[in-house]
């Protein structure tokens, strides 16, 4: 299906990345993702890329799978790259093509910004590919737990997050089915003026909303039937324990960020 999204598409495995405590994993991933914004030199970019690729190897997730899950975002980043190329005007002029000017500054921006973001995207993709939604929810829960003291429904938010991951493929399939039905009834969803297109979306969006409401109603029945009570104590099949490898992972991530900063001093 054209609309199939790769968010939450867990890739079953037993690699080191799969076995990490989700809390440690999420913390490491967030550190790595934030640290891409320190990248300003070629050396840093190379180092970050090397580490990201090494992580892909460690995860034992097939490269094809990683690529397909980052593809949509890479496409957007390519657009960003083209914009940078055409709009940034700093540095020396390299090529001039009528009103189009490419400068050293714009070429560097077109390369650096998307490439460093791809590192973050790869890390995020690996996190989702090696962590089950339940684990993610647990990590999310643990991360928000301190805020629960101030009245934030941490666990409920985590549950909503998990259900969202679960229902993305279902809703995507349903969207496709409704799109098909309305298209075959002559709904012009991909042609005509922008106004026409916006109008043509109404039959799809309304039908989809009705359908999502139905899902929500049924889901609440299912949650009731399985004795889920918001805010009540639950046990965990796989209770979380930080082990040595989790602390090592955190330490290595800290070292990675340190190296990245050190390289910026060198560069």
């Amino acid at each position: 299906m054209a609309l199939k999204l790769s968010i939450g598409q867990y890739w079953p495995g037993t690699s080191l990345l799969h076995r990490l405590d989700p809390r440690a994993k999420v913390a490491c991933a967030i550190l790595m993702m934030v640290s891409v914004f320190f990248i300003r030199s070629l050396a840093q970019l190379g180092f970050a890329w090397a580490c990201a690729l090494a992580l892909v190897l460690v995860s034992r997730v097939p490269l094809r799978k990683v690529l397909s899950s980052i593809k949509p975002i890479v496409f957007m980043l390519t657009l960003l790259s083209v914009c940078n190329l055409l709009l940034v005007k700093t540095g020396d002029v390299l090529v001039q093509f009528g009103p189009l000017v490419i400068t050293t500054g714009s070429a560097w921006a077109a390369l650096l910004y998307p490439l460093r973001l791809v590192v973050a995207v790869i890390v995020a993709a690996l996190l989702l590919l090696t962590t089950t939604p339940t684990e993610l929810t647990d990590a999310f829960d643990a991360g928000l737990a301190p805020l629960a003291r101030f009245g934030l429904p941490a666990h409920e938010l985590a549950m909503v997050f998990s259900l969202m991951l679960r229902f993305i493929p279902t809703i995507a399939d349903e969207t496709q089915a409704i799109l098909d039905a309305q298209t075959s009834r002559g709904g012009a969803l991909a042609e005509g003026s922008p106004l026409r297109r916006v109008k043509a979306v109404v039959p799809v969006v309304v039908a989809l909303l009705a359908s999502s409401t139905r899902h929500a109603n049924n889901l609440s029945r299912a949650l009731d039937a399985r004795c889920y009570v918001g805010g009540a104590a639950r046990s965990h099949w796989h209770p979380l324990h930080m082990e040595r490898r989790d602390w090592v992972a955190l330490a290595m991530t800290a070292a990675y960020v340190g190296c990245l900063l050190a390289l910026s001093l060198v560069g």
Partner: protein
Amino acid sequence: MQAGSNSSAACQGSSCSQSKTAVHGLTGACGTVAGAVCAGDTAAGAVCAGHDPLIALDDVTLRYGDDVTALSHVNLAVASGERICVLGANGSGKSTLASVIAGLLAPDEGTVSLVGRTVCRDGQPDFEAYGHARRKIGLVFQNPDDQIVTSIVEEDVAFGPENLCLPPDEIGRRVERELARVAMGDYARSDPSRLSGGQKQRVAIAGALAMEPEVLVLDEPGALLDVRGRRGIMRVMAGLRAQGTTIIHITHFMEEALAADRVLVMDHGRIMFDGGPPEVFSHCDELLALGLELPFTARLSAELRVHGFDVPWTCDDEELREALAPQCACTRAGHASAAEADGLPQERVPSDQTGRTTTTGGAPQGNPACTVERVSYSYNDDGGRRALEDISFGVSRGSSVAIVGQTGSGKSTLVRLLCALEVPDAGRIVVDGIDTARKRDRRLLHGRIGYVMQHPERQLFAETVLEDVAYGPRNMGLSPDEVRARCARALELVGLTGREDASPFTLSGGQQRLCAIAGVLAMEPKVLVLDEPMAGLDPHGRAQLEQILSDVLAAGTTSIRVTHSMDDAAKADQVIVLAQARLLMRGTPEEVYAPTHEAELHRAGLGLPAATRWALALGLDAAPLTMSALVRELSRTRAVAARLGSGLSDAAEGGDEHGA
């Protein structure tokens, strides 16, 4: 059971209807079980000897809002270990009953006891008791997608036990045990959204069973599944019954009720019949009037009796077969020679066909409505998995085609290609003279092929029925007068005239489907493509839609229908069988459903129509596709046997007469 006084029909003894009238507390409830016993259930009787019922509903009434009464003075007692099947038309209150038994809905009036606790006394719910009772009751319902809460199969099964605060090693044991029970052990780490409907539903059952419920309530678990999926669910249920789990099974499939100990029939929120399956199904006319039907065996035995066969009325396969066997000595050799001597035209079935046969039967002559030539297609996101491979067939104008195949065989993809929603990778599809690959003709094509998707009610969006139906014709650019005329015709065809100004979302489930179909019919397509149009409908809804579709066909529209039902497929002019993205067989129903194909169809997750299966089991030489053909064939065989045996020629004439 004052309300269900009709159920005195189920309870033939007058003494037992007395015992049903008042149920106060547990002793009275036990009396209700006794009522069930006299309706023909020995299992319940044994239980009544000393135990309290597991579930007791005493004069329960439940309303939605002010005007909809979903349950009306219902009395019910379920003994531990019983397997109960609940039948009834849409809107009869079955699902509400399931919710009440599952402890999810409290009634407005009456007393409910669940697994030994009184959870609601005279309409006053005790929420704490409900909370405790729910821990002992599992619920599985129609749409498996809505019941699975995580993206990993085993994590989902663990969800319930986690809510019960069980220790981790106990959870692990239960997850493993229940996945093995529903034969999903190999899929423990899979993503549920990648599983078939039947597999998902089995995961949902495992999730309910992992909480070790004393009662399992299944609310139409097979409604959205294919034949194999339903068979799997029935197998799981039989295993549970053997282990003593109490089962409440709500279904639209009468055949499934035969496996139950006790059958309840509901109508307008009341229990109309309550008894063993043979007892309940003996009320043929009443059941038909309630919008239900009878199991195939029951209908067959009734039909045979009409035709003068000396068989008992029964819904038991074995019993009917044994009664039939001596009457038509169905030795193949004797039958074949005798039939020729009889001068009757014999339905010859090409018996030499084996394996991947593609017959020419049902192929179009002249100007076809639709041709598919060597079409292949693969989805690019799934590692290039082939969804269709080298498919060819033609459809002649005004004919009907059935596409069968189990989930994942490529049926839905084929339908999307036919409707020009996707273009084949190789080969071509021509519909009404237009190649679907030509983009600029796409709009024209959408006007000529009507596509009724699976669960078409999901496409409804407009504020009124009329607006929704008019969406297609308006998009075709027709004049307002023409649009109005077409909508009126389409609404009349589906029987929704007079509901033009209603919101489509306030219609009943069956009406919503008809409204969506009217939206497609209003475009007056030349070719109508339907993807499992009957899924989830009750017998009455199925019959109604069948009538509408046959009217459409009679008006000259070509119809292509994806179906799970071999009996429905047997009524088409041409049957196309898909298996693993390939065309397995194609031909007239007689050719495809030849007895020699049984093993191959079975491998493809399909089977033969019920009538053909019966003929095969009785050793008949012919392969009738419908019940009337089967009865005709049996009459002839009997006549021949009689003539060969004793030379009574008048018997033979009698047989012919009935066959005509």
